[in-house]
């Protein structure tokens, strides 16, 4: 498998970024929903630290992914895909990127405005984006929460569309994002 994208499929770089980020986001959502239910404990503090550290990692990976997207070609839409579906797909993917940036940034802002210091996996200090600010904290919290709902809806649409292409349209939309030999 090539590390760059081709006309027919996504290369290993794009695939690694796609699936790696996908797994991390699923993990973040699971941890993010569960951690709020934990009673105050040292464990809770640590779990929040992990959520924040993983979230910032995703932020960095998404920036790399955007850069890669700019540099590398993208396989075209399947032949005969209606124009409205192309527009919807393009819009949904754009919005996914907005959220993949917006979620870590709003979380980071929330953490900063709430005046929590943060070390990335305990290794180095992450700069604060804001002075302690209760109003900004509330705003960032709401962005983070509503962002999650939008992300969940987009995720469902994304997975649903991939399965639709695979099982109903029987095109290569899903398989070209999977490792292994590409089918002609």
């Amino acid at each position, binding site marked *: 498998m090539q590390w760059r994208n081709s006309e027919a499929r996504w290369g290993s770089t794009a695939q690694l970024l796609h699936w790696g980020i996908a797994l991390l986001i699923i993990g973040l959502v699971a941890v993010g929903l569960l951690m709020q239910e934990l009673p*105050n*404990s*040292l464990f809770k*503090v640590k779990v929040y*630290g992990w959520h924040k550290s993983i979230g910032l990692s995703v932020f960095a990976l998404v920036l790399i992914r955007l850069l890669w997207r700019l540099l590398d070609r993208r396989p075209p839409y399947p032949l005969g895909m209606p124009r409205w579906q192309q527009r919807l797909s393009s819009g949904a993917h754009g919005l996914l990127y907005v959220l993949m940036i917006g979620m870590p940034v709003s979380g980071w802002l929330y953490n900063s405005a*709430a*005046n*929590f*210091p*943060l*070390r990335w996996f*305990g290794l180095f*200090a992450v700069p604060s984006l804001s002075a*302690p600010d*209760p109003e900004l904290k509330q705003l960032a919290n709401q962005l983070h929460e509503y962002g999650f709902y939008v992300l969940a809806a987009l995720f469902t649409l994304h997975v649903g569309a991939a399965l639709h292409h695979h099982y109903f349209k029987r095109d290569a939309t899903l398989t070209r994002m999977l490792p292994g030999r590409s089918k002609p």
Partner: protein
Amino acid sequence: MTRMLVPLLMAFANVLAATPALASEWQTQPGSTLGFAAEAQGEKFSGAFERFEARIRFAPDALTGSRFEVEIDLKSVNSQNTERDEMLADEAFFNSAAEPAASYFAERFSRLEDGRFRADGVLTLRGVSAPVPLDFSWTGDASAATLEGEASLDRIAFNVGAGEWADAEAITHHVSVRTKLVLTAKPSTTP
């Protein structure tokens, strides 16, 4: 006889003059602060008590009669972080629902080599009383003065953050305390 009386009277006058000046009473003014700092998860954090009452009787030349009596409202803790402040109020930390106040009492003072003073006081927190010396500078005159002091304490000695929170990597055991008291002399009550 008079030859004996005169030196005696003079000696008596000397004793009177040498009687230590009375330590005066002071009133805290806005701008007075009482704060603390420690490290949690490897990062510094600091907070302050927004309500505390300091009854200060002090004069640099009358250490013997000086006395500090401070009452700290633990519920007034503000570390600019709501979640942390709520946690500090918890039973594991200040337990401020059950013990809403801490106090500091000192009546033994000494002069340090650097010109500052030391109060060998006792801090009572969560029902534990233990010595916590406070080193402070005293500047000003007879009507207005500023006290700037620092102390250091071991939170474990006062059971602040017991159990799993006793982990020094989670929160350092050493907590530094800083205070600045802006003071004006109380009008003397004795005639």
